[in-house]
């Protein structure tokens, strides 16, 4: 439906767009990291686009991804970027929906921030940073938003141990006390 958005993107920002596709009726544009802010600013301000509604930001961790029903070549391997940052946008004026995707490798988990373009992305990018550890360059206040400052690691990454607990406070008389002896027992066991 928003194929004309993809066409216009490819026309105006050919160097910044890696790939465009349509997935289950949603138009997706893969954007290079360097060109993301320019593309977003154009999408927001251009009279034929006017994407005024930032819907969400999230991230996808592709570690060990084995899709069912797709060729094995599409599975994740070490050479592919591990994270995908997704920006879902909506234009109420022209009734367009568009998803911007940015590929982010693990060793360089940085992504340009769009909080300056749409202020509503401020807390959402903080959430994405909190859960996945993506550093949003240019974000005004990149701190954890849900978890506490003492938390180590990023819990929604696929390699975060499922059983791991990071307690702030525990009773003194527990038989297995993860605060007193961090390796004294299984974190999930009681």
């Amino acid at each position: 439906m928003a194929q004309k958005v993809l066409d216009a993107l490819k026309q105006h920002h050919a160097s910044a767009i890696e790939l465009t596709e349509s997935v289950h009726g949603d138009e997706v544009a893969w954007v290079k990291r360097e060109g993301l802010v320019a593309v977003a600013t154009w999408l927001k301000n251009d009279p034929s686009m006017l994407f005024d509604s930032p819907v969400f930001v999230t991230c996808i961790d592709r570690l060990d991804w084995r899709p069912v029903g797709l060729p094995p070549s599409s599975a994740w391997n070490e050479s592919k970027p591990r994270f995908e940052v997704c920006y879902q946008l909506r234009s109420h004026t022209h009734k367009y929906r568009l998803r911007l995707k940015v590929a982010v490798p693990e060793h360089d988990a940085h992504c340009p921030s769009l909080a300056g373009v749409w202020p509503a992305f401020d807390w959402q990018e903080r959430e994405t940073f909190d859960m996945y550890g993506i550093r949003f360059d240019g974000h005004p206040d990149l701190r954890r938003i849900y978890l506490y400052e003492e938390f180590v690691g990023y819990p929604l990454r696929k390699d975060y141990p499922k059983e791991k607990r990071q307690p702030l406070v525990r009773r003194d008389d527990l038989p297995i006390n993860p605060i007193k002896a961090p390796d004294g027992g299984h974190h999930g066991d009681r």
Partner: protein
Amino acid sequence: MGVEITTTRLEDAAKWAKQSLVERATNWGRKFSLFTYPFVTACCGMEFMSVAGPKYDLARFGAEFPRFSPRQSDLLMVVGTITEKQGPALKRVFDQMAEPKFVIAFGVCASTGGFYQNYSAMPGCDQVIPVDVYIPGCPPRPEQVLDGLIMLMDRVQQGRGHSQLRTKREQLIAAQAASDE
């Protein structure tokens, strides 16, 4: 099974034989005037409201008012999931309550973490504070809650609540230390 509400005087006497008359009277007063502090964090709160409302009526058993200040209450009801981030707040609330204090873990999340076995949920509020009665269920039926409350009342009467036992232990230790000198 479970706890008898009505007991004969003989059974009472056997159960409370080791208590002095004053202790017996104090505990009797305590068990019928439990002031609840509802630490409501999640959907179990709906069930708590139903228990506190007129149909099931927690007030019949003396747990009359929900007091929204921990300093005026002696029964902490942990209703709903406790996250690790909430742990310090829960401990602080518990520390502010006046002795003797009792804790009910309301629902399976407060008891064991329930189905939230992940990075953020605490595996049961007894990781942080001592719990007297666990009420399972997701959420528990009001009848279960009333059963748990009666169980707690029985325990209060016997002087076997956590804080009562702790006070007794501290008194014994102090008496022992005094006699040693």
